[in-house]
């Protein structure tokens, strides 16, 4: 299978325009003739479907494995409860109690039960949907309400990616485990931010996370004219590439509110997003000049 080029769109802070960038970039790339896969990894609040309006052709449950007790074999020794680091098992009066919402599916209890009395069974935590939207391959995950296993759902979404040139991963906000699961296979990370103190604080955290994962990255400043210059100053100081600046424009806000793709109703935005792809290519050339051939090869295969 051909190596896909994975672009993760992330942001430390929510509501900065991450999904706007992800869906519009996906459409611009498809218009340029690329084979694009869009993955909505924001499984707690997936919103990409509102804009891409895909035809969903398949649905499946996402499950994780949790232990189940075979009462006949269990002698109530309590080993499982003592080894579970997440307190997902308790043994009370020789009876094993399992709390699925605390279980991390590590498999320790079933592997280490001396009586071999624990088996792993599937527990549904979310849903995976795949389909198509105007030539773009679409997949999204949805965490079931009350569940915590968002990373498992994100993993299922990533595994649903089909063979294509470019994969756009619309990531959850923040910098913790969900985001890391979404970003860890990315070849490039785009961090979307706003020029405000909150935007800067959260951008800083997102940059640190991206660096910890050793990913090449650049920044998009949305509503660049609403705040101050601190984000730009920070990027300049840290030598961070700014891929694009999107102005604060009522037409963008309205298109977003309605669930429309902004590039479709605004020619100038279409051009702005097309030039984003140019900026990304220039950046990739710069990065690959500093790196070895592997990155070079994947980039060529992405058709850049």
């Amino acid at each position: 299978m051909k190596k896909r080029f994975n672009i993760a769109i992330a942001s430390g802070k929510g509501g900065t325009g991450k999904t706007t960038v992800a869906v519009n970039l996906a459409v611009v790339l498809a218009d340029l003739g690329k084979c694009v896969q869009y993955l909505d990894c924001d499984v707690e609040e997936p919103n990409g479907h509102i804009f891409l309006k895909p035809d969903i052709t398949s649905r499946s449950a996402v499950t994780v494995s949790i232990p189940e007790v075979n009462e006949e074999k269990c002698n109530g020794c309590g080993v499982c409860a003592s080894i579970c680091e997440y307190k997902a098992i308790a043994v009370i009066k020789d009876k094993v109690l399992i709390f699925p919402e605390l279980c991390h599916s590590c498999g320790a209890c079933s592997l280490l039960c001396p009586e071999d009395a624990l088996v792993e069974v599937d527990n549904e935590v979310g849903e995976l949907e795949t389909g198509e939207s105007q030539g773009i391959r679409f997949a999204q995950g949805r965490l079931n309400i009350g569940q915590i296993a968002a990373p498992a759902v994100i993993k299922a979404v990533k595994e649903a990616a089909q063979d294509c040139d470019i994969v756009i991963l619309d990531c959850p906000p923040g910098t913790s485990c969900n985001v890391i699961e979404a970003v860890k296979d990315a070849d490039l990370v785009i961090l979307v931010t706003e020029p405000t103190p909150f935007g800067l604080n959260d951008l800083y955290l997102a940059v640190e996370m991206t660096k910890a994962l050793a990913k090449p990255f650049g920044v998009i400043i949305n509503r660049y004219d609403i705040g101050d210059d601190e984000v730009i100053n920070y990027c300049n100081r840290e030598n961070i590439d700014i891929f694009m600046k999107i102005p604060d424009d009522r037409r963008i806000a309205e298109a977003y509110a309605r669930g429309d793709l902004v590039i479709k109703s605004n020619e100038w935005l279409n051009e702005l997003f097309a030039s984003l792809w140019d900026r990304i290519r220039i950046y990739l050339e710069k990065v690959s000049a500093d790196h070895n051939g592997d990155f070079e090869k994947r980039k060529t295969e992405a058709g850049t």
Partner: protein
Amino acid sequence: MKEISVISGKGGTGKTSLVASFAAFAENKVLADCDVDAADLYLVVQPETIYQESFSGGGKAEIQEDQCTDCGLCLQQCRFDAISYPPSQNGEPAQIPWVNPIFCEGCRLCARICPVEAIAFEPAESGLCYISKTPYGPMVHARLGIAQGNSGKLVSLVREKAKAIAEKESRDYIIVDGPPGVGCPVIASITGSDLVLIVSEPTLSGRHDMLRAAELTAHFQIPTLLCINKWDIHPETADRIEREARQLGILPAGRIGYDPSVTKAQIHKTSVASYPDSPAKKEMHQVWENVIKTLNKSETG
């Protein structure tokens, strides 16, 4: 003492700006910033830290190179792909496997099964929890370390500390700035709260995320109110969100119009409450009054 959690489902709806104003309106309260992933409240309430402690979300495994025999068992069994052979300086893969601390979930399985006991497992510091003095009263906040998991546990710690202060100092309210989403940190922020306020925005995404957040508060049976921020960006959608919320038993606590002084306040490191003529200030004040009214009603009824 009453605990109010402000959440949003969707990020960026203005939740923290609203909490910062509540901080100015409410009397005798403790602030708790439970958005530990993107803790921004401290930027606008001028905190002076008086206490801090480190937080451990659990342990992490570490392979002792001199003891490892490279049997490969841990690699096979780790469910989180945290163990690999990292490329060494000369480009060749290393001889001994290595645990990537970013991916290690701290389940301890590897350390338990290693036949030569070559894997150490120690609690790892994954964040800091602070108690600060602010002009608005005490605040508990935290910072999750870069690329650290288990934010739910840190959220619980922040709430615990806030509660302890509220009890000791007989404070009337705890105001919680919650995280976005519906996953583990949000659940940790709202369970056991007296009231949840969902801050939404009049967009289809805002509506979608409000419905998910509403489902979550219903799941935990927590009384919930709704506030629509920047409602005038799309009045029809604002109406629709309120209508749908009502059907779910969630009453509106008020609307806030688009007001540039909200961003201005943030840039000046304060809340809109310090802008006496700002329309958003008055509207936010009304929201707070409604929150209090609902809390008092649930007390008597």
